[in-house]
C-alpha cells in the first residue's frame, strides 16, 4: 500500500472511530438515563404497591385508589406466599423477558411481593436511537471518504510533483524548478529541492565542461603524435620533425596529467614549514636564469602547512610571473591575520575581462604559449582548502599581483 492510500485509510479509520465512539457513547448514556428512570419508577411503584396492600384481612387486598392506573403504567403486580399466588393485578405476571423490568420484595409477613413494569417502549426507543445513529454513521462514513479523497488530492499535489521530479532527477534528467504553494513544510521542502537541483545541475555542467577540456587537452597531443607518425610513414614528415613533435606533445600530456592528478589528489598532511627557508629552497629548484629574477622577502616564521601542496602552488604562481614578465618577480610574505603570500611581477598583466576566468580549469589567456591552464585552478583549490583564497589583480601601478591568503595558524 503506498503512502497516499495509507494516509487515506488512516484518515478513514480515524473518522469512523470518532463517529463510532460518539455513537456508542450516546447510546450508552441514553440507555443509562432510561434505565435509571425506569428503575426509579419501579422502586416508586413497589413502594406505592406496598402501601396500597392490605394484608390484615383473611385475603390480601389492594386499594387501587392508592395506585396509579396499571394500564397507564403497564404495571403488573403479583403477591404470593409459600409458592402460592394470592393476588395478581394488571394481567399475568411476566416471566424472564427483556420487555419487562421486575422487582421482588420479601415482606415481613412472609409474603413475596413482585412488581413489573413494561420496558417495551423503552427498548423500542433505544432501537430507534440505534438505527438513526447507524444511518448517520453511514452518512458520516461516505462523507469521510469523500473528504479523505479531496484531502488526499490537496495534500498530495505538492508531494506528487516532488515525487515525479525526484524520479526524473534519479534518471539524470534535471527537472524544471517546481512551483511553491504556501509557506508550510512542503513549501520549504520544495524550495530546498529546487535549490538542490540547481546546485546539482551546475556541478554537473562544471564536471562536463571539465571532462570535455581534459579530454581535449589529452587527446589533441595524442592525435598530433599519431597523425605525425602516419604522415612520417607516408614520407611527408621527416624523422627529425617527428621526434620534435613527439617530444613536445609528450611533455604537454605529462604536464596536463600532472596538473589533473594534483587537482584530484588533495592537499596532504600539514607540517611545520619555516617560510623563509621554504621559499629560498623553492626558488633554488627554478632554472638558474629564473632564480636571479626572483626576490624573496619573508620573515623567519613557521606555519603549519601542507608542504607539497604549498610548493606546487607557489611554484605555479612564480612560473606564471616569470613567464609573462621580463623583470624581477617579488615574492613577499606579509605578516598578519591571515598571512598573505604575494607574488608580484612587472609584466603587462592580463586583459581585465579575463581576470575572473583565470582560475577556471584549462582557461589560458595566451593559448599559443605553452601551459596547461591548470596551475591557477590548483592554486585556488589549495588556498580554499587552507581556509583562505586566491586574489588576482592587475596592480594599479602596473604588473600583475597574485595574493595567496593563508588562513592557517602559526605552528
Amino acid at each position: 500500500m503506498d503512502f497516499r492510500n495509507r494516509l487515506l485509510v488512516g484518515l478513514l479509520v480515524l473518522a469512523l472511530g470518532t463517529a463510532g465512539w460518539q455513537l456508542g457513547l450516546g447510546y450508552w448514556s441514553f440507555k443509562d438515563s432510561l434505565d435509571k428512570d425506569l428503575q426509579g419508577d419501579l422502586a416508586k411503584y413497589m413502594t406505592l404497591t406496598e402501601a396500597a396492600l392490605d394484608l390484615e384481612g383473611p385475603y390480601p387486598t389492594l386499594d387501587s385508589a392508592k395506585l396509579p392506573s396499571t394500564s397507564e403504567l403497564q404495571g403488573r403486580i403479583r403477591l404470593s406466599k409459600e409458592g402460592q399466588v394470592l393476588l395478581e393485578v394488571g394481567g399475568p405476571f411476566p416471566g424472564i423477558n427483556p420487555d419487562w423490568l421486575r422487582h421482588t420484595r420479601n415482606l415481613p409477613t412472609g409474603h413475596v411481593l413482585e412488581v413489573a413494569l413494561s420496558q417495551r417502549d423503552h427498548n423500542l426507543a433505544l432501537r430507534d436511537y440505534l438505527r438513526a445513529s447507524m444511518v448517520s454513521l453511514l452518512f458520516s462514513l461516505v462523507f469521510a471518504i469523500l473528504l479523505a479523497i479531496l484531502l488526499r488530492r490537496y495534500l498530495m499535489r505538492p508531494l506528487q510533483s516532488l515525487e515525479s521530479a525526484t524520479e526524473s532527477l534519479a534518471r539524470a534528467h534535471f527537472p524544471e524548478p517546481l512551483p511553491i504553494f504556501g509557506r508550510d513544510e512542503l513549501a520549504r521542502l520544495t524550495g530546498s529541492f529546487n535549490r538542490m537541483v540547481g546546485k546539482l545541475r551546475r556541478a554537473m555542467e562544471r564536471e562536463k565542461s571539465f571532462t570535455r577540456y581534459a579530454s581535449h587537452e589529452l587527446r589533441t597531443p595524442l592525435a598530433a603524435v599519431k597523425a605525425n607518425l602516419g604522415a612520417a610513414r607516408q614520407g611527408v614528415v621527416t624523422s627529425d620533425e617527428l621526434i620534435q613533435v613527439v617530444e613536445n606533445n609528450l611533455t604537454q600530456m605529462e604536464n596536463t596529467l600532472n596538473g589533473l592528478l594534483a587537482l584530484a589528489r588533495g592537499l596532504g598532511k600539514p607540517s611545520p614549514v619555516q617560510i623563509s627557508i621554504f621559499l629560498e629552497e623553492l626558488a633554488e629548484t627554478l632554472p638558474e636564469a629564473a632564480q636571479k629574477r626572483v626576490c624573496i622577502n619573508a620573515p623567519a616564521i613557521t606555519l603549519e602547512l601542507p608542504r607539497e601542496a604549498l610548493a606546487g602552488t607557489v611554484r605555479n604562481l612564480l612560473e606564471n610571473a616569470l613567464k609573462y614578465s621580463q623583470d624581477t618577480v617579488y615574492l613577499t610574505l606579509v605578516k598578519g591575520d591571515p598571512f598573505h603570500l604575494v607574488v608580484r611581477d612587472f609584466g603587462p598583466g592580463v586583459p581585465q575581462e579575463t581576470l575572473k576566468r583565470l582560475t577556471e580549469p584549462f582557461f589560458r589567456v595566451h593559448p599559443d604559449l605553452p601551459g596547461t591552464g591548470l596551475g591557477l585552478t590548483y592554486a585556488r583549490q589549495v588556498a580554499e582548502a587552507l581556509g583562505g583564497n586566491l586574489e588576482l589583480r592587475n596592480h594599479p601601478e602596473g604588473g600583475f599581483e597574485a595574493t595567496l591568503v593563508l588562513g592557517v595558524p602559526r605552528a
Partner: protein
Amino acid sequence: MRVLLVEDHQDLARPLLRVLAQDRYDAVWAKNLREAYAHLAEAEPDLLVLDVMLPEGEDAGFELADELRTAGYSKSILFLTARDAVEDRIRGLDLGGDDYLSKPFDISEFMARVRALLRREGPTKNAVFERGALQVNLALRQVFWSEHEVPLTNKEFALLELLVLQPERVYYLEELVERLFPQADSGFITVRMYVMRLRDKLSPQTIQTVPGGYRFGL
C-alpha cells in the same frame, strides 16, 4: 579541390596539411576563427575540416559551422575533435556537419573520409572514374590514358578532378579561377594554360570549350 583546415594545434595541422598536399589537394590552414574567416572570404572551400574547440571558445567550431550553413555554405564539413560524447556528435551533425572524426585518429582514415566527402559533391561516387580511354583513380590520385599512367602536376590533377566529379556540369572561367587559383594575378590565363596542358597530355577532346567556360568532354 580546396580543403580548409581549421585547427589550433600546429603539431596536428602540419601532418594533415602535408598528406593533403601530397594527394594534390589545395590545403589551407587556419589556426583560429579569425584566420578561418579570412580564408573563407578568399574562396569557398570544397571541404571544411573543423576542430570544435578553438582558442575562441569550447564550441567555436560548432558555432562557425552553424553560421556558415545559415549563410548558405553547402559544401561538406568534417568535424575533427577530441570530444566524442554522443551528444557532441549529434550536435555536430545536426548543425550541418557531414562527418565526425574524433581524436586521435588514423591519418589514412582521415584521408579516406576526405575523399568520400569530396566525392559526395558530384554524381561520381566511385573512387575510380572511367570514361572512354580515360581512367582517374581519385583515391590513389593517379590518371591513366589507354591504361598508361599519365603524370600530372597537382594543379592539373585538381582541374581534372573537378571536371570528372561532375562530368555533365559547365564550369565558368571565373569559378575555376576562384576554386583553383584564388591567389593568382591573372587567373583566366592560368586556367587556359592548364586546360591546354591537360588536352596535350590526355586528348584534345577531354575538355570541351563552351561559351564562357569548360566542361568534361568525353
